[in-house]
């Protein structure tokens, strides 16, 4: 079964870590990234394709409505909000809430409800015979792996592939996440073992 993935948008470090701890209690759930502001929220969701975002109400209120509808309808991303318990703050675009002063069992109950729903939609939307291989590298990423193994820096990779340094770094991040390998030396070992590059090509 594929994982349910989350992006978290929350200013407060303490609250963010609290959410992470709660999510860790659930099987098959993964937090892809945590952010402390909502800059680029749309492109981040587009890029990481999470099943849901968990976002502080105060941040949520800054997102224009047309963006919210795009996030929900085009990117099929569910929204869970964190905030104080005020009826008046409820929004039709939010699927579930976590309140600051809920006790742990209440928080878990709400999260479980949310996660169960996500799992249901996830399994409905997918052909059950095909496993989602989120960890497989794209062709572009394989290309980047080869260049890293050859000893190129991010800047050199960007120049070689005619991409921005920012994009090159995003590739590196995604490669690290997919492979569980961060360092250039580690990526080199991976490239050799998978015959993406030959020993004699090493510098």
């Amino acid at each position: 079964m594929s994982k349910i993935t989350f992006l978290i948008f929350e200013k407060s470090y303490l609250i963010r870590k609290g959410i992470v701890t709660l999510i860790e209690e659930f099987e098959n759930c993964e937090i892809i990234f945590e952010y402390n502001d909502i800059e680029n929220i749309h492109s981040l969701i587009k890029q990481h394709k999470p099943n849901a975002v968990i976002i502080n109400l105060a941040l949520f209120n800054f997102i224009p409505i047309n963006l919210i509808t795009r996030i929900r309808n085009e990117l099929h991303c569910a929204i869970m909000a964190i905030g104080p318990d005020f009826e008046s703050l409820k929004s039709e675009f939010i699927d579930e809430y976590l309140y600051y002063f809920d006790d742990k069992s209440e928080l878990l109950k709400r999260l479980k409800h949310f996660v169960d729903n996500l799992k249901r939609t996830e399994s409905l939307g997918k052909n059950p015979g095909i496993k989602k291989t989120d960890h497989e590298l794209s062709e572009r990423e394989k290309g980047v792996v080869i260049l890293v193994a050859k000893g190129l820096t991010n800047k050199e990779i960007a120049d070689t592939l005619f991409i921005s340094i920012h994009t090159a770094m995003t590739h590196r991040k995604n490669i690290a996440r997919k492979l569980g390998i961060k360092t250039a030396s580690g990526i080199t070992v991976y490239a050799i073992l998978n015959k993406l590059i030959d020993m004699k090509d090493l510098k």
Partner: protein
Amino acid sequence: MKSTSLIKANHALANVIHTDFTLLSVIKRFDIKLGISDSTIREICENYNISLAFFLEILNAYHDKNYFATKKLQSFSIQLIVNFLKSSHHYYNNEKILSIERQIQKLEWDSPDHERNLTILKKFFNEYKNEVKAHTGHEEETVYPYAIFIEESCSKNENIEECISKMQNYSITNYAKEHDNIEEKLKDLKNIIIKYLPPPSNQNILYEILSELFLLEKDLSDHARIEEKILVPKILEMEEKLKQKI
């Protein structure tokens, strides 16, 4: 004893070991011999002439990663911390890493890829070995001597001028900022072994290597925490005191 509760002077060391066996490598660094019956930590420290406050601080820091040094006046010296950190460096460089390296050399594959697999692993691990050596070497040559000099000057109230000029060049804040994480490559190696390395014919050795890597990683991150959460704040406090003296 709850799994992350505080370790105290009146606890039997034997029970502490049962609760968290990863402390064994630390206890060993204090040269404590086993066969300790039900002796408490306090008794053992008296026997071995070890600073009780310091031993407890180290045990707790290794046992609970959320443990922070107590704010109460710590009765042990920088020299003690530095000696412990150095003996840990020795343990990594001259025991752990060498033994993992020897294990790696024993790996065998029944395939034409044997040579390739072995060479690339050895190369990677050798790079790691050098990285750890450079990191610990820098600390022993630059950081620790500086820390000891600051402590001595602070306690004897001398060399104030020299301290201040040293601080302007390199203070403990620089160290705290630059202190990098030497576990990154180790994490990569774990994943390479778990996920990508073709299985060798002597699997058992690979399992042993993997367990060793997990233990080493924990030890290194606890070690770094002692540097950052115990050594740095103490020196920082002394630097402040020295600054007020001029």
